[in-house]
């Protein structure tokens, strides 16, 4: 798999600390929702750094999207969110990963569980479901610190209204919006029980987020009776 030249064509702020980058990659091949790219930066002295970023949406011709959350003290993510400018080149390699993917031909009910920026590949699945006109029942449980940290907030609101069979439940860990029932808390058994699918329906489950989050959620799911082979996980790195 080779490194391909790419260029930033647009950026959108998702939250105060996260940006969606639209990249033009001439000759991009198709990809599946859930796959990621490796992105490589080269400094003038030849120094390079590469990191993985999930593809956030189906490709639009040669255009791909990633959403990057700034990690304080990070080497690559603050550069991408704060410094990297439209028109500037970068290198991309992918698509990568053939396990944590959802195929629009699949018919099993789907449960998506996201922690923070872990929503990115899951949003790609929600967008692909819409693009394919799939009516497979989808539920997303999305854990965020505060309402201001929700990625794709407006689009998710619209999709829940427009896409029949899609439900989204939020769990706030630090600060809940006005009118939300319950206290801020870390995602627990009751949340998975109330907003997920029961194991009898044999859903496919995709869990993505920081390592500790994925560990906790996948243990809860197995505890509830979901067979481990039906639970797919993607760990974005250190606990956040």
């Amino acid at each position, binding site marked *: *798999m080779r*490194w391909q*030249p790419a260029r930033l064509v647009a950026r959108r702020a998702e939250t105060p600390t996260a940006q969606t980058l639209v990249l033009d990659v001439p000759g991009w091949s198709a990809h599946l929702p859930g796959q990621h790219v490796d992105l*490589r*930066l*080269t*400094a*003038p002295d*030849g*120094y*390079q*750094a*590469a*990191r*993985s970023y999930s593809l956030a949406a189906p490709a639009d011709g040669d255009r791909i999207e990633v959403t990057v959350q700034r990690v304080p003290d990070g*080497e690559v993510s603050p*550069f991408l969110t704060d*410094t*990297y*400018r439209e028109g*500037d*080149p*970068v*290198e991309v*390699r992918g698509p*990568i*990963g*053939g*396990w*944590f993917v959802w195929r629009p031909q699949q018919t099993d009910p789907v449960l998506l569980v996201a922690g923070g920026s872990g929503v990115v590949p899951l949003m790609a699945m929600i967008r692909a479901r819409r693009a394919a006109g799939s009516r497979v029942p989808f539920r997303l449980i999305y854990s965020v610190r505060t309402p201001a940290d929700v990625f794709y907030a407006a689009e998710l609101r619209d999709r829940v209204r427009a896409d029949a069979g899609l439900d989204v439940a939020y769990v706030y860990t630090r600060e809940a919006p006005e009118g939300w029932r319950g206290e801020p808390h870390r995602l627990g058994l009751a949340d998975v029980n109330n907003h997920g699918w029961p194991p009898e329906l044999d859903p496919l489950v995709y869990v993505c987020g920081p*390592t500790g989050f994925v*560990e906790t959620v*996948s*243990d809860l*799911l*197995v505890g509830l009776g979901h067979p*481990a*082979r039906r*639970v*797919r*996980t993607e*760990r974005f*790195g*250190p606990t956040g």
Partner: protein
Amino acid sequence: MGIVTPGFSGRPRVEAPELPPGQYLTPDFPVLSAGPTPRVERDAWEFVITTETGAEHRWSWAQMMALPQETPTVDIHCVTRWSKLGTSWQGVSLDTLLDEVETAADYALAHSYGGYSTNLPLDDLRDGRAWLVHTYDGEELPAEHGGPARLLVPHLYFWKSAKWVRGIRLSLDDTPGFWETAGYHDYGDPWREQRYQGD
């Protein structure tokens, strides 16, 4: 050299000759796996080597622990680009286990509780280069890092060091395992950056 991205300088890099290309050092021990963490009781645990003729060699936990133990200190390299230097383990050398096994096989497919698998040339499990480990940093190996026991094959990317390992199937042909079927390299040499198929 790649295409220069204006404004990027990177971080002052640590000189570390032990670091393969494209890797960076991490002080923590990140966890990466494809699904929930399997929990395997030591009483129920067993390790089985199956040869190409179907002959089986089994070890219970107590039998494995009674074998000569080694304490390798090694550098490990994850394909997601973190490396960790000087990690210390305890376990049984694969040489010790394979000593009891008659085989003409060239390939090994390690398989795990939970369904994971990964392929390696059998030679890469020999000559003091691979272990079945149960202790990390002086403590029982935690389940999220592959406990009760995992493979340790530090000269290859860490996905080859199968967690929750349950056995090894020996064969004359190479059968790609879990990540290899999902687009990762068949061999996975960190020094040659064999990350994905075709590298």
